[in-house]
């Protein structure tokens, strides 16, 4: 496999010239001591998908690590398609020391390719100390722990612009029917398009689907669909898509209509709500806070969030998260992961906007806003009752690739919300293909 990849890269002349550039020198023989880590001169490369504000926040954490250990950490942004960035580098035998994977599905995939290194005792100790077993499970493959969840995302939120709600006389909704029939309708009547959809970023549509599905079909069906034990042609999926069509099918409800939404990526959709003040609500996770702040909104004052309303019997709590893994077995990589898994690293990160820690020992007092404190509390206390983002658990060809699988078919559904049956059939066809492999 490795050999073939070297050749593929040469064939494509993609990165042939950069071979060996980022290889980190392994410090000679110094076993990681728990207290002081003399990593001076060690170069560590870490790759994650974050850009912009999220990257800036993360680099502060890295700076703290550098100050503590003397290591030199280089951050590489993988862009939205982490698999496409890491794939060639793994195949080329030149992976970053540490990678932050946006999907647990990738942990399984890379573990199967032997691209991941088992975590050191020091990291495992931090995980046992700071995380519930559920999170440990998410970072494991074949009984071996490879990953530590360094960042969580609360995906069951609807962000809204409070002044728009006040102007229209709209109120938060607790049920889906109220959201559509009252909140959104009131806003539309008052001349404000209720929703700014980020249709160009397919994952935002899968997040919406997951909340509606978890709520309307219940956790048991959710688990089954996530493992593809029930087909996407199941009537429970029909129900969820019908509910989504209540938004997608009304041009008054979507800023720019379906065509405009499909050209709008994340975080532009957030800017449209808080910066340009063109729409009232954006359905996405807690990390909207970061973009909203950048657009000039104050979290808790004009930028507020409501829990995703119940579209059925279950109040949905869908989580996402980023898993840190070691791709090279060296002291620097392990020390960095240990730092990220520790209370110390979590505390530093927690002070930045748009960050939620799954670490139960990170004190909620660190969070810069009241809202984040509450969200952190719900994640920690919900424990195993929550569900992890379904598309991130699926093989990435189905649940995590631009222009393919679930992303594509939900985008097509946004374009043509009347074709529920066709959407389900296409989803099922691609899911069957992806889960078979």
């Amino acid at each position, binding site marked *: *496999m490795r050999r*073939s*990849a070297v*050749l*593929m890269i*040469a*064939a*494509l*002349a993609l990165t*042939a010239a950069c071979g060996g550039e980022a290889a980190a020198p392994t410090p000679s023989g110094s076993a990681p001591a728990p207290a002081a880590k003399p990593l001076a001169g060690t170069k560590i490369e870490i790759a994650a998908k974050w850009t912009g504000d999220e990257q800036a926040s993360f680099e502060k954490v890295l700076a703290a690590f550098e100050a503590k250990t003397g290591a030199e950490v280089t951050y590489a942004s993988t862009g939205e*398609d982490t*698999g*496409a960035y890491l*794939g*060639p580098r793994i195949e080329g035998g030149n992976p970053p020391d540490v990678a932050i994977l946006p999907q647990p599905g990738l942990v399984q*995939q890379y573990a199967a390719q032997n691209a991941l290194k088992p975590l050191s005792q020091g990291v495992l100790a931090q995980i046992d100390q700071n995380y519930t077993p559920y999170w440990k499970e998410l970072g494991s493959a074949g009984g071996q722990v490879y990953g530590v969840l360094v960042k969580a995302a609360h995906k069951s939120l609807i962000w809204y612009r409070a002044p728009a709600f*006040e*102007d*229209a*006389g*709209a109120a938060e909704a607790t049920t889906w029917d109220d959201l559509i029939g009252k909140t959104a309708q*009131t806003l*539309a*009547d*008052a*001349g*404000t398009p209720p929703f700014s959809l980020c*249709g*160009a*970023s*397919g994952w935002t549509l899968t997040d919406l689907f997951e909340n509606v599905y978890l709520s309307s079909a219940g956790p048991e069906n959710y688990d089954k669909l996530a493992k593809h034990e029930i087909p996407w042609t199941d009537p429970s999926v029909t129900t969820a898509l019908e509910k989504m069509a209540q938004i997608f099918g009304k041009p*008054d409800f979507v800023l*720019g209509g379906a*065509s*405009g939404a*499909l*050209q709008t*990526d994340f975080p532009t959709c957030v800017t449209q709500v808080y910066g340009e003040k063109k729409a009232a609500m954006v359905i996405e996770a807690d990390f909207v806070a970061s973009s909203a702040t950048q657009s000039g909104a104050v979290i808790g004052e004009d930028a507020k969030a409501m829990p995703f309303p119940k579209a059925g019997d279950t109040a949905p709590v869908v989580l996402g998260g980023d898993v840190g893994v070691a791709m090279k077995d060296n002291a620097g990589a392990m020390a960095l992961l240990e730092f990220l898994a520790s209370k110390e690293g979590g505390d530093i990160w927690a002070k930045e906007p748009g960050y939620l820690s799954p670490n139960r020992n990170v004190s909620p007092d660190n969070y810069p806003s009241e809202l984040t404190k509450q969200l952190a509390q719900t994640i920690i206390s919900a424990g195993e009752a929550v569900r992890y983002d379904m598309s991130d658990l699926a093989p*990435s*060809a189905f649940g*995590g*690739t*631009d*222009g*393919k*699988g679930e*992303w*594509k078919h939900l*985008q097509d559904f*946004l*374009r043509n919300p009347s074709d529920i049956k066709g959407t389900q059939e296409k989803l099922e066809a691609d899911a069957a293909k992806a889960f078979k*492999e």
Partner: protein
Amino acid sequence: MAALPKRQRLGPSPSLAWLFLAPALVLLAAWMIYPVVYSLFRSLHDATGNTFVGLANYGAIFSDSATLITIRNNVIWVVVAPLLVTVLGLIFAVLTERIRWATAFKLVLFMPMAVSLLAAGVIFRLVYEQAPDRGVANAIITTVHDAFAGSQGYPGARPRENDAAPASVENGAVVTKQVVRTGQPALIPLVGLSPDAVAGFAPARPASGDGLTGTVWIDTVRGGGGTVNQIDPEEKGLAGMTVEALQGGAVKATTETAADGTFAFTGLPPGDYQVRLPQSNFTAAFNGLTWLGPTLITPAIIGAYIWVWAGFAMVLIAAGLSAIPREALEAARIDGCTEWQVFRKITVPLLAPVLLVVFVTMIINVLKVFDLVFIIAPGSVQPDANVVALEMWRVSFGGGGDQGLGSALSIFLLVLVLPFMAFNIRRFRRDER
């Protein structure tokens, strides 16, 4: 003179020549021949690389509808882009010969070549933005359009969508549901305009009088509240709205609302009417074209490609043009040819070799197009804009990680490019002779 010994010759020995050629050969073998052969080998295996699957990957290329779209797009690219680039290059080259600031003009046209395709993609992603306040393309189109037909009335205003609403939408016009009787003022409450949009409007007032009268107003209050379908003091009237009185489907009279939203028809006989606000009141502002939508995306990206490459074609063709013997052109002019005839009968035939080289080079280039498509097309329309080279990269390294299918696509692309390469090489050989 004695014959030279057999082994003696002019120039270095073949072994020395081989020595000097060796580095190039090694590099060629490592970076060209081996990868091609290995890709061919790899394309006959499945995603893991362990199982031989014969031609199944090639079968997959032609049976998967998404891949077929990439082939269709490549065909569009090959048919349209090289021709346009060559023709534009020719036009620029011929015209720049005749102007004063030719060098400056050429420099400007050639400038895009200095920009990386990736940066060009980012630029054009912005150019093609839908909102005219962000995208230059739509800004130009809407400005031109609005110069001829400005938007008017109240786009977005509409009646409430429920049974209690006194009016409803029919074919884009707002029509009262009940008959309106003379002497009984009609109420036509509308919604859908924001409080800010109507902030400066005069307050709505109930109409009065014996004739056919009524009020058209925005039935929402900042902060909510207000009585639905009733005129509240803080609600605003809609001025200048065209109102039609209908009887039996025929328009009997037309009037306009006053500043407070009231209207009154004068000189209508008493009776039962329907009141209609025709569609012209609600014409939405023209918002430009959806460049980044599924229909226009490929032409839009081809436009960006032409922006980059037209200058290159111009420079090559201009070089060819300067090599044309002037006498031929002058002789034709003296013989009484028009400029158009000179261009068609003399310039183009003499330029044909250069034009052909540019054209074929562009075809090869276009077949491999990747970056512009990757950058300009938003995620939601990537499947519609996809081309073979991008699909090859996606299936190999993005998501699926199926390098077997990816290799098959790369070989397919190679097969497409080969005839044009062979053609170019043969031309070069002939030119050398």
